[in-house]
């Protein structure tokens, strides 16, 4: 709990509040109607409408107000947890390579390729449910890892930039994936571009049949714990930490840089590879992406918000999913566009990466003082 109150996490909270405040002001501004009514009236009505929209935006993943009564919003809640799952996984994948001081911009492609490969297993293989699902997840992970072989090898052995190579791999993974899907498992009876239905044994256990809340969330949380343990408590994690902190010193100390850098990039690719498959086997029951869903890019946001700590990754993924589900509901029931959430995301990232912001001694001292008071 103490670490949750660290200066860094308070800084993140402050920036999130700031971003929400900016979004709030923007919404008021966009609702300001001064042509037909007086300025004061326009302002009050803008306030009212913005407040309504933001109430929905910030509470709807939990509660629903229906004819004056407050209900638990199970539908949105399930949606929230389901959307959190892929974000945790890609967030973990990115955090992992960040810890070693390298970047992986290929998480999107790894996720996509993993999902396609997993879909093949889900369509063509028939096994007892538990084995089938395990096999699907493993194949997805291996495919994701396979996609990161080239960037890892090129960066370590040929001194290529892993950023560029992994970025370019996204195109390869996406178009090859789409090709294989259309060539072999396309559902030609359906009007849209989607695969045939998965074998029933692939269906991921659901908490609830009606709301389709799947167990991917639990898997992602467990994985976060495992990665945290690996990084913080094991010899391997210590090596990764040393490489990320100062690779000259790590090399001088006798750590095999190339081997560790390749390992960490493959592991990251493997985790990213599993990010998409849960949604397909747990929710849709078929492969239906005709464009890449973007979880790989979201992973970068999640990792930055979590300051690459695997324990904070679920928190920051949950936050991102929360405001997205909230924004969808807001878009559905009010006239505020759900794209507002993109503005919030952008502001958060820009402010978070501005290391000078909220970094002054005054700010940090006042936080220390606050903490001192609350303890005393």
């Amino acid at each position, binding site marked *: 709990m103490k670490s949750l109150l660290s200066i860094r996490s308070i800084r993140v909270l402050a920036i999130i509040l700031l971003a929400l405040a900016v979004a709030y002001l923007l919404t008021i501004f966009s609702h300001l109607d001064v042509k037909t009514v007086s300025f004061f009236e326009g302002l009050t009505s803008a306030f009212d409408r913005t407040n309504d929209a933001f109430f929905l935006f910030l509470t709807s993943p939990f509660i629903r107000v229906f004819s004056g009564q407050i209900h638990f919003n199970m539908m949105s809640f399930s949606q929230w947890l389901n959307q959190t799952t892929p974000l945790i996984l890609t967030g973990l994948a990115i955090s992992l390579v960040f810890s070693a001081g390298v970047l992986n911009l290929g998480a999107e492609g790894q996720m996509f390729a993993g999902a396609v490969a997993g879909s093949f297993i889900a369509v063509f293989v028939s096994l007892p449910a538990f084995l089938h699902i395990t096999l699907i997840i493993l194949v997805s992970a291996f495919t994701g890892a396979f996609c990161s072989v080239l960037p890892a090898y090129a960066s370590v052995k040929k001194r290529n930039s892993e950023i560029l190579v992994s970025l370019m791999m996204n195109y390869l993974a996406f178009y090859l994936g789409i090709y294989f899907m259309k060539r072999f498992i396309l559902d030609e009876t359906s009007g849209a571009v989607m695969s045939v239905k998965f074998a029933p044994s692939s269906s991921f256990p659901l908490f609830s049949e009606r709301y389709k809340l799947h167990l991917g969330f639990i898997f992602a949380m467990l994985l976060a714990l495992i990665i945290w343990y690996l990084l913080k408590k*094991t*010899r391997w994690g210590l090596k990764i*930490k040393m490489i990320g*902190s100062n690779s000259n010193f790590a090399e*001088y100390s006798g750590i095999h840089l190339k081997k560790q850098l390749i390992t960490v990039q493959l592991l990251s690719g493997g985790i990213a590879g599993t990010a998409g498959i849960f949604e397909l086997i747990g929710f849709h029951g078929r492969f239906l992406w005709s464009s890449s869903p973007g979880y790989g890019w979201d992973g970068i946001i999640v990792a930055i918000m979590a300051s690459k700590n695997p324990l904070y990754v679920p928190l920051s993924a949950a936050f991102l999913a929360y405001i997205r589900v909230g924004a969808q509901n807001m878009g559905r029931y009010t006239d505020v566009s759900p794209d507002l959430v993109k503005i919030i995301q952008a502001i958060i990232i820009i402010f978070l990466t501005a290391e000078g912001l909220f970094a002054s001694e005054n700010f940090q001292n006042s936080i220390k003082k606050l903490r001192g008071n609350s303890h005393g």
Partner: protein
Amino acid sequence: MSLPDEPILVLNGVTKIYPNQVIANDDIYLNIQGGHVHVLVGENGAGKTTLMNILFGLIKPTSGEIIFKGRKALFKSTFESIQAGIGMIHQHFKLVPSLTVLENCFLGIEPKSFIFSNHREMKNILNTFLHKFDIKLPLEKKIEDCSTATKQLIEIIKTLIRGADLIIMDEPTSLLAPQERDKLFNIIRKLKQNGKTIIFITHKLDEALSMGDEITIIRQGKVLNTFHNHNNNLKEFDLIQMLFKGNSKNIKVEKRDMDEDVVLSFQGVTLKGKTVTSLSDVSFNLHKGEILGIAGLADSGQQEIIDIIMGYENQYSGIFRLNGKIITHHTLQRARALQVSYIPSDKLSIGSDGNLSLWHNLISTQLDSKWVANIFRLKKSKIRRYTQELMQSFSIKASSPSMKVENLSGGNIQKTILARELSVKSKIILADNPTSGVDSESALFIRQQLLNQKNKGKAVLLFSHDLEELKLLSDRIIVLYQGKINGKFHNNDALNDYRLGESMMEAKAGNCS
């Protein structure tokens, strides 16, 4: 343009103390005569570059004043210093690779016609300068296709175009081949004839003597002396004595009979650098239970020897043996596995990691040993105990094992490195200037530790710029000069500074290239 024999630049008590309390310049007084070549000599890290960066407006001094052309000058930016007539040639050139020579010369000050730069006028201006100093340049060639020497010429021309009267050259010969160096010297002489003042930074004494009208020796941030060299009356030896005067305290040295076991040997090792041969035909043996000192001016091949032993460098010819075995395909991991310990001279970026805590730094070379971790987890309590033991036995002053190393003092950081390298099983210890930049108490401790290791039968290869230290600790001393072994001495009473100094200079007849 100022008259000769009148100081164009005066430094009065310039001091620079960095936030981490490192004193780079300590109360420096300096007069630079107009129209002279003034050479600053000093070892790496003596504070020459910091001083010049202060002069050029890149670094703010802690105190002191600068008087340039009779006026008080404290430049806040390089823009101001260039305006005032100072030009600086950095060790690493500041040119745009994709632009042509002509475009680079006028970057930022292009003569304009309408909004386009006027190439014809640029050429005219440049040609008058080139003619005046008798320099040839390929004007339309791109910088990326130019040789190092040409790039340097362009940097010089750049300062001239911007009207510099005082040109600072920071180790200009370090990247040049010998012939190119002579060309540069000719150009410097031309500049001098035209009334320009040159500050020439180097650590090569022969260059200092052949170019300098005045030679100032800087050591550990202080000006030791300024020599006048009007009639070439200076001898290299005068400089060497100044440069290497150490202030060692006495340690009792136990002279042991030499063990015959050779643990490391070089046989005719040659390493070709980019422009010059950095090691040529180096042969020596290192025995068990001895300290072999390696002396020489900076960049005489010390780093190359270390790189070969530690596996950073593999492109050499000749035979390198460790524990009797010929080594090919050497890597750092193998060097560590063959029990070579290494105390690098770069304490902060190679020898330690300031962001990590003390215990990280103390066990970093032992991560694969069983006591540090099993397959599941690190053995934190054992690591903690180990760290505390080392803190005690090497008297490292830190509040706890998890204190960040960047918060330790310089002496304690060096003791941390020493503790790590000496507490692992090792047969060979490479120590590269282990006491430079360390307070005298820690230096004494470090020297004692090295002697203890020798008495335990380990082989120590000691690289040092401090002759006193070498004489104090070593059983034998090898002197390097331009990548060659220029002298081997047994450390007995017959050895004196003069004999060592002699072999650190231009080689004896018939022995030089």
